[in-house]
């Protein structure tokens, strides 16, 4: 079989010394028609630059191809070197022969046009369709990417669609020109895990239907197993390992590949949960949340006040004892972050009780946020950042306090001289350690970790998780660990609460919930977790919409009914 694309010794550089200091160099691979190649690497490895070089979008980012050839087989059988092709030729190629989808579907769609109009435009440009023909083609395209009520959705603006729907629209646009190669640059990174599974399933089906080749870029080696035929692992601009999927995953040769495969948290369905803590009967909870309700009223303008409310959190209750981790899992919009914010008092609870252990002064609950870049004031040095909780508690900044700062810094693995430095001088992992140290300044009982490791590269993530577990043992902390990542949850949680549409649908012992999920949503969530063990496994395309959280004024949900599914395992009746 002749190859569709044959890349030899590709080198790409940026700026003035593009030739001397290439960002990406020595890339060679062949891609046969209908085949999928996965490009894997951590941030900054050059995987996106490589992909953008193929359709030469890299030129617009200031990049220059400084060496190598990229032989592209055209539909008529002739070959074209993409590295030498002029902009005119490329313009005819992009969209028609090589399509592309990006990571962030919100920013890749134009917010002021309906999605229908944008897909029609793609058809107009790539196929020369006009008027009726274009809108029919657009509707068919939306049908093809499994968007329900395609005719209706044509009139929607991007902001009216969910992230998964927007990514489907992007795929529909990329497919408008019937490309023979689709470049997918981290297409599911911004999406929830069940939506990710749906998009992956969709891509796999479309690939089979249309017989197109695909280059799939991802930082998540676990995602590769389900879709790729070949794998190329990149680090610092060079390919460190490439080969067939099974060879690379089962018998990795290069240390970096082994490291990547080792660092990826594996989800094993509840077999690897922690067993270092058992609840004692009658133990006083560090925090107890009862019937927490958070609603955001929707203002209907001056004349129609109280149009209704968004029921973000509805009747959530749980307790947490010292030394225990309760993980709240769920997707964006499920109310897990709102629950955390309500416990911290950042969002006002409509009703409900949050009781911390009696006789405790100050603030027994502290929080570590998701983005360590946003949660540290860039203009304060570390000493000021760490001193803030103490100042807020009315303490004096003296030698004793400084001593405590140094101790905590050392404990979380940062050098003492960090005190006089500023946040921008630290890496993401180090910043998150700083945030953890800051949260511990006042000896809290409970630390709320809101997606605290989600923004970190996998290898850094593993080390921060280890640190958290150590700190928990040392200080007897209770963690409320909020995450969408099931593998991470399995590693750190003792108990798990699954949230869906503002409600807890299943709660209990981590081993029990993860191994024997009973609620349909928990089952779906666990089935969607990608992993290197789940090779070429077909995910079902499931388009069950999440129930709307917007409820009319005065709406009260029916009281929850629970069934017991184990010693410590409750499931909400559906």
């Amino acid at each position, binding site marked *: 079989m002749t190859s569709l694309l044959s890349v030899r010794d590709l080198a790409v550089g940026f700026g003035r010394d593009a030739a001397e200091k290439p960002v990406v160099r020595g890339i060679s691979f062949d891609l046969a028609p209908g085949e999928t190649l996965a490009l894997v690497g951590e941030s900054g490895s050059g995987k996106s630059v490589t992909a953008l070089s193929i359709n030469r979008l890299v030129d617009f980012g200031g990049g220059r191809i400084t060496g190598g050839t990229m032989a592209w087989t055209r539909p008529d059988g002739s070959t074209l070197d993409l590295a030498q092709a002029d902009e005119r030729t490329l313009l005819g190629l992009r969209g028609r022969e090589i399509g592309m989808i990006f990571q962030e579907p919100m920013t890749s769609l134009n917010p002021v046009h309906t999605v229908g109009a944008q897909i029609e435009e793609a058809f107009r440009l790539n196929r020369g369709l006009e008027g009726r023909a274009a809108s029919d083609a657009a509707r068919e395209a939306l049908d093809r990417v499994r968007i329900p009520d395609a005719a209706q959705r044509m009139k929607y603006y991007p902001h009216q669609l969910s992230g998964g729907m927007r990514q489907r629209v992007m795929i529909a646009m990329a497919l408008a020109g019937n490309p023979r190669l689709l470049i997918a640059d981290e297409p599911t990174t911004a999406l929830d895990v069940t939506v990710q599974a749906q998009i992956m399933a969709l891509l796999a089906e479309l690939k089979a239907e249309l017989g197109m080749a695909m280059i799939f870029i991802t930082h998540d080696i676990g995602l590769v197993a389900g879709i790729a035929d070949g794998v190329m692992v990149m680090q610092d601009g060079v390919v460190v390992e490439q080969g067939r999927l099974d060879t690379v995953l089962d018998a990795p040769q290069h240390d970096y590949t082994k490291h990547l495969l080792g660092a990826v948290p594996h989800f094993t369905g509840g077999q690897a949960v922690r067993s270092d803590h058992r609840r004692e009967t009658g133990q006083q909870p560090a925090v107890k949340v009862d019937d927490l309700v958070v609603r955001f009223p929707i203002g209907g303008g001056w004349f129609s006040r109280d149009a209704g409310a968004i029921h973000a959190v509805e009747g959530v209750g749980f307790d947490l004892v010292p030394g225990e981790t309760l993980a709240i899992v769920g997707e964006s919009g499920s109310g897990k972050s709102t629950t955390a*914010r309500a416990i*911290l*008092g*950042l969002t006002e609870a409509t009703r409900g009780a949050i009781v911390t252990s009696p006789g405790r002064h*100050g*603030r027994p*609950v*502290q*929080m570590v*946020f*998701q*983005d360590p870049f*946003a*949660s*540290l*004031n*860039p*203009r*304060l040095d570390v000493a*000021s950042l760490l001193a*803030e*909780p103490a*100042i*807020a*508690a009315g303490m004096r900044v003296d030698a004793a306090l400084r001593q405590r700062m140094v101790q905590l810094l050392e404990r979380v693995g940062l050098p003492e001289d960090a005190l006089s430095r*500023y946040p*921008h001088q630290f890496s993401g992992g180090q910043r998150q350690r700083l*945030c953890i140290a*800051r949260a511990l300044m*006042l000896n809290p009982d409970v630390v709320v970790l809101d997606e605290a490791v989600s923004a970190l590269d996998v290898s850094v993530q593993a080390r921060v998780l280890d640190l958290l577990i150590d700190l928990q043992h040392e200080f007897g902390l209770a963690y409320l660990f909020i995450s969408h990542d099931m593998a991470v949850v399995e590693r750190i949680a003792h108990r798990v609460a699954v949230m869906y549409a503002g409600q807890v649908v299943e709660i209990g012992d981590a081993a029990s919930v993860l191994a024997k999920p009973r609620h349909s949503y928990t089952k779906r969530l666990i089935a969607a977790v990608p992993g290197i063990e789940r090779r070429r496994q077909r995910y079902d395309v499931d388009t069950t919409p999440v129930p709307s959280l917007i409820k009319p004024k005065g709406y009260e949900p029916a009281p929850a009914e629970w069934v017991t599914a184990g010693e410590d395992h409750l499931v909400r009746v559906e």
Partner: protein
Amino acid sequence: MRILRAIAAHPTGRIGAGIILLYLLLALCGTIGFTPHNPLQQFRIDRLQGPSATYLMGTDLFGRDTASRLMVGIGQSFLIAFASVGLASLVGTIIGLLAGWWGGWLDGAFMRSMDVLLAFPAILLALLIIAIVGPGTFTSVVAIAAVYTPIFARVVRGPTLSLKRREFVDAARTFGSSERYILTRHLLLNLVAPLTVQVTLALAWALLTEAGLSFLGLGTQPPAPSLGLMMSEARNLMQQAPWLLVFPGLTIMLGILGFNLFGDALRDILDPRTQRRTA
């Protein structure tokens, strides 16, 4: 100290700082009376002399020394510019900060009243205030401050709106930090960069506005020298004595350039993300 050294290392900041230092020195000399000649004394024999060794920048219609008058004039202009911008930035920052932080009706009330002030052209508004209160140094300060307060309020309110939703403000709330602490440490500290740039720009504009008001006869009153007044007096003598127009004009222009260069350098230096490049 660190900032001063960084400015000295900054290529254009050095020029800006140099100009401002020179002006400050000249203004100081002018104010304490350390001038080549008495700026008010009329050397009747030497009327409308061109630049020479005795009169560095020539003399005016009454035989007064232009260089000496310029030195005193710079002092006067700087006094008004600094005082008015100081007042405007103080009031504007407080209004913008509180409007952005509290939002709601307070935001509306504050910002709409700022809009009213902004609706008038700068000179016209200043003229109006002076017409009501009467000319004088203090009136000029208040008038120019009133013109530039809304700009500071706007410059501060925008970032305040985005800063108050940043995670580090949420984090501060979870520690129980007081509102005053959050406003000063988290918001104001992050506003330093836009504020310094705005202050230096406003200083340049205030210099120009002051010159304009004096030019119209509503700022500094004769015989006290002022840059705008000197240009106004020189206007009719443009053909016979161009130096009378050129030197005050150049002085104003150079001063504005100096403040702009200085402001750019300060912005580069105060932003911790660009620190490594300049320091």
